[in-house]
């Protein structure tokens, strides 16, 4: 059977809940099963990509590091939207890791070709 593609959508800020970490856990588990994974960070989730986060002070892991290792597991499609960047006044090139930016039509197309979606 062809391995189906999985879309993981995260919409939460890095420390607002366990969502950021749980999304990465799901992505890694899918990678272990050789499922092609696309990670889409929308709304506040784009804040997971702010560089140089010193999260040790609140006893949390650094999302830059966790997201940064995903390409080692063949998860190299990291997307966000123009709206999410605009919402927080961010530039994609300053983010770590730098995401690919999609407009609304591209997001619709991305959703349309994924019958398997995990959102958190």
């Amino acid at each position, binding site marked *: 059977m062809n391995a189906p593609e999985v879309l993981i959508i995260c919409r939460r800020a890095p420390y607002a809940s366990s969502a950021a970490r*749980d999304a990465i856990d799901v992505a890694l588990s899918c990678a272990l099963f050789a499922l092609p994974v696309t990670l889409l960070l929308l709304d506040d989730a784009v804040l997971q990509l702010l560089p140089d986060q010193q999260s040790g002070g609140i006893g949390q892991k650094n999302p830059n590091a966790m997201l940064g290792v995903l390409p080692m597991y063949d998860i190299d499609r990291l997307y966000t939207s123009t709206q999410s960047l605009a919402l927080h006044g961010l530039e994609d090139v300053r983010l770590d890791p730098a995401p690919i930016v999609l407009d609304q039509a591209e997001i619709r197309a991305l959703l349309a070709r994924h019958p398997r979606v995990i959102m958190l």
Partner: protein
Amino acid sequence: MKFTLVVHCAPYQGAAADTALRFARALLAGGHELYRVFFYREGVHNASALASPPRDEHSLPLAWQRLAQEYQLDLVVCVAAALRRGILDENEAKRHEKPAANLASGFELSGLGQLSEALIQSDRVLTFGGRG
């Protein structure tokens, strides 16, 4: 069509926990197959044997158990999420030296691999109570 439902929402936390149950009933009544229900994050609280709502109120853990019995459903609770939130079966209670186990019968603790495997086996995978 073969479905898998992923439940991220605890009873009373939001409408999504109830919606997932009603969606499961509707798809089964429509002749579809429910390959697995995977309880993740706050959704693990749907599997608590200790939830004791008043008798005239609807109990989600009980409703899932009944549906599972009727249709032989595979109700899987993410073990890592469950341990963090204090939902333990007998084995885990022993392993972590806890005084009690509280995983309701009909539910099973297992890893995220069960979600990945369900993603392969199912035609549709729907998330209930994301954004939490």
